[in-house]
């Protein structure tokens, strides 16, 4: 067992515990979210932290790195008790946390964010040249070809995450904690990240890794700690655990069937038809049909233009050309309001930036998109409360306190609330962009079944996802995009990873032409 845990450590390096949390308890107000949790992080080991949404993972790691103070319990660093008054103290002791929620100043550039608070100086002045060089070096290490001068607000979510990782790497961590770093990353980026994690581990860095993707845990972690409802359930080597075991430990029950049974070919008439839609510089000549009762997947590498296409359909981006038909009739959708009237709803992948009002409580967030349903003149609060009740039930939203700000919710619960918000409009067609980002495995399965139910009731779903199993497990057909073009729509047995990759890279199908020609 212990052998397994330290298999990758340099032989000359002793197994040693770097940072421990002992009997950590944490309450916000009078709500306790952690109960006597203990955890040991060892040099040269990747330790995974598992648990359902709201189990307290993020809270625990924030305590370990000094962002929160424990209500009781203590931290032990290299055998001696230690108190981190703030995150700066934590970082000074080499404890670096990559937050689950992005923590970048949107109006600053990539380079400025990476070195924020630790600017490299020459004399009294910023050494911009060095910082730019360093930033470029860090980014290229992560094979991320973002220009360090780009402002964060102009970056895609996954690029932002890579910047966060670059920022953490630049800090020379002894103990590196990653809170769901891969939720917004693509497969390729995950591989790059894992290479970096292995490299650091081999250098003797202690790593704590949080993810809801159990494959990743299998692939990268040596030991795993499972939390449930704020309590420590177990800590054991990953080698001895199967994915199902982990899921059971987390959820406390078996997950029988991940995906709903979907009988292929039960799809009906065309509900939405898009013809020759283009967006300047982002999408070219996209055409597809969506049938009633089907899930149409959209696959493609990052920046292929999927989001741009969808936002153009629902009127959030300007189209340069193209027609849209609903049930065979042409419709003019020039704003999200028009789309809503046509029964189309859209779930954004950027829950923090465009999804939820973080400084407000759940109720107004839930009903914001479908306000008129709750009264055109006066909002019916009772109906809102009832809807909230129903949504909490249906989407299993676990908030300690209904009145607390959505920004204080755990990431997964925010995502569930966002899904509930979009569903509140009772749409005929749902476009969902990365619906299960940061969602635990139990809830994920619930969401998949929910999508299944939707289509069974004759509604249609467009699914944008970078998770291949999700794409394959849910979609009836899969449209693949590359460089702004739909390069193919895969049906039946063609729906497999290999075909998708071939189309996504432009090897096969309609040529993905550079959209900027």
């Amino acid at each position, binding site marked *: 067992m212990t052998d397994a845990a330290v298999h990758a450590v340099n032989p000359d390096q002793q197994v040693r515990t770097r940072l421990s949390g002992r009997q950590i308890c944490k309450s916000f107000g009078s709500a*306790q979210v952690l109960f006597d949790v203990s955890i040991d992080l060892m040099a040269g080991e990747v330790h995974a932290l598992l648990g359902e949404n709201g189990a307290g993972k993020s809270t625990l790691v924030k305590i370990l790195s000094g962002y929160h103070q424990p209500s009781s319990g203590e931290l032990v660093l290299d055998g001696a008790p230690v108190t981190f008054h703030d995150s700066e103290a934590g970082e000074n002791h080499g404890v670096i946390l990559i937050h689950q929620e992005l923590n970048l100043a949107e109006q600053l550039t990539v380079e400025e964010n990476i070195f924020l608070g630790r600017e490299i100086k020459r004399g009294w002045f910023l050494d911009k040249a060095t910082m730019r060089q360093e930033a470029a070096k860090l980014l290229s290490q992560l094979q991320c070809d973002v220009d360090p001068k780009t402002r964060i607000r102009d970056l895609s979510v996954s690029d932002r995450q890579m910047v966060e990782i670059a920022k953490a790497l630049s800090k020379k961590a002894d103990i590196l904690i990653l809170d769901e770093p891969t939720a917004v990353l693509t497969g390729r980026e995950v591989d790059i990240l894992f290479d970096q994690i292995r490299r650091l581990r081999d250098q003797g860095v202690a790593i704590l890794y949080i993810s809801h993707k159990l494959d990743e845990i299998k692939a990268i972690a040596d030991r795993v700690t499972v939390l449930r409802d704020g309590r420590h359930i177990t800590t054991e080597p990953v080698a001895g655990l199967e994915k199902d075991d982990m899921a059971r430990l987390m959820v406390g029950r078996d997950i029988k069937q991940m995906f709903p049974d979907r009988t292929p070919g039960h799809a009906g008439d065309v509900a939405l038809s898009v013809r020759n839609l283009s967006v300047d510089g982002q999408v070219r000549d996209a055409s597809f049909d969506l049938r009633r009762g089907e899930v149409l997947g959209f696959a493609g590498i990052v920046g292929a233009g999927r989001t741009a296409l969808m936002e153009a359909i629902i009127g959030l981006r300007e189209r340069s050309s193209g027609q849209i038909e609903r049930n065979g009739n042409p419709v003019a959708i020039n704003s999200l309001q028009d789309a809503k009237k046509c029964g189309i709803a859209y779930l954004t992948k950027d829950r923090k930036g465009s999804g939820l009002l973080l400084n407000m409580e759940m109720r*107004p967030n839930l009903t914001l998109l479908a306000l008129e349903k709750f009264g055109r003149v006066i909002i019916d609060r009772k109906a809102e409360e009832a809807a909230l009740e129903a949504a909490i039930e249906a989407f299993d939203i676990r908030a300690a306190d209904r*009145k607390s700000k959505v920004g204080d919710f755990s990431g997964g619960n925010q995502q569930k609330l966002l899904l509930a918000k979009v569903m509140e409009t009772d749409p005929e067609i749902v476009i969902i962009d990365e619906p299960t980002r940061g969602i635990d495995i139990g809830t994920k399965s619930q969401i998949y079944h929910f999508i299944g139910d939707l289509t069974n009731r004759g509604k249609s779903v467009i699914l944008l996802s970078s998770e291949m199993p999700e794409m394959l497990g849910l979609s009836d057909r899969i449209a693949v995009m590359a460089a702004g073009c739909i390069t193919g729509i895969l049906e039946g047995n063609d729906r497999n990873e290999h075909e998708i990759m071939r189309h996504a890279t432009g090897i096969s199908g309609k040529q993905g032409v550079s959209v900027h020609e």
Partner: protein
Amino acid sequence: MNSLERTERSASSGFTIDFKALGPFLALVGLFILGTAINEAFLSGGNLANIFTRAAFIGIIAVGATFVITAGGIDLSVGSMAAFISGAMIVVMNTLVATLGAGIETVLIGVVLSIVLGVGAGAINGLVSTKGKIEAFIVTLGTMGIYRSLVTYMADGGTLSLDFEVRGVYRPVYYGDVLGIPVPVLVFFAVAVAGYVLLNMTPFGRKCFAIGSNEQVARYSAIHVDRVKTMTYVIQGLCVSLATIIYVPRLGSASSSTGVLWELEAIAAVIIGGTMLKGGYGRIWGTVVGAIMLTTIGNILNLTDAISNYLNGAVQGLIIIVAVFLQRGDWRRKKSK
């Protein structure tokens, strides 16, 4: 997490929120105690009526400002707008006396004109800033200069005075009372209630909160951001026009010095009341209390000669800071988080 804990937590946070909401009221009560201590006349019916009547002007305007600020905007033009509307009302009513006589009709036309001008001026502020994509601060700074100039121009640098006969007819709108409550106070109350309902109980109000909180999220929630923002300026304009309608019969005149610095007072009332200057959170009752607080401070200073006149501003400034500090409510609790 078990249900027991859940109840417990929400109970405690309920307390916190209540205390915060009570903050401005407590600060106001503090001021009243101070006032009474300084001069017993403070609590006399006449004085209280004076305070509330005066608070009505700034209060009505501040209710409008609450919408603008909640939705993330700002309006610096309200004072000049009030002066301009007063001026236009007086000019038109004086002209009408010749044809319609000094009757109710004349006053009514003046009132309608006021509303039209207020709504129009608000719409201009809103449309120029949203459609022209210019910071509201600049747009309303510009219109502030424009309206003030226009009234100066109309008055030829002097004062526009309402015809004395019309004044007689119009007078009760300011000096009258219903069951002993002055008309301006009633109007103030009505505007506050309407504002409260609109901001807290209607889809429109909800949208204001959403826009002030995060415009992008609002846009992704199918909200016509520009339209709602423009509407907040229109509401502000309407409130200015209502305030003007009760202002004109008070002294029956308008000049370039009418309404100077009202914008600052209105914004101060809003912020004292707990609305956030950056938008996303607004509180009508807070604003009402804020307006009354500002008026009360002025009144208290007039009731004592203990303080050198020259230091009035200093005392006023201090009281505002202390009152806001007290009303924040969390000074008693330890720094948390």
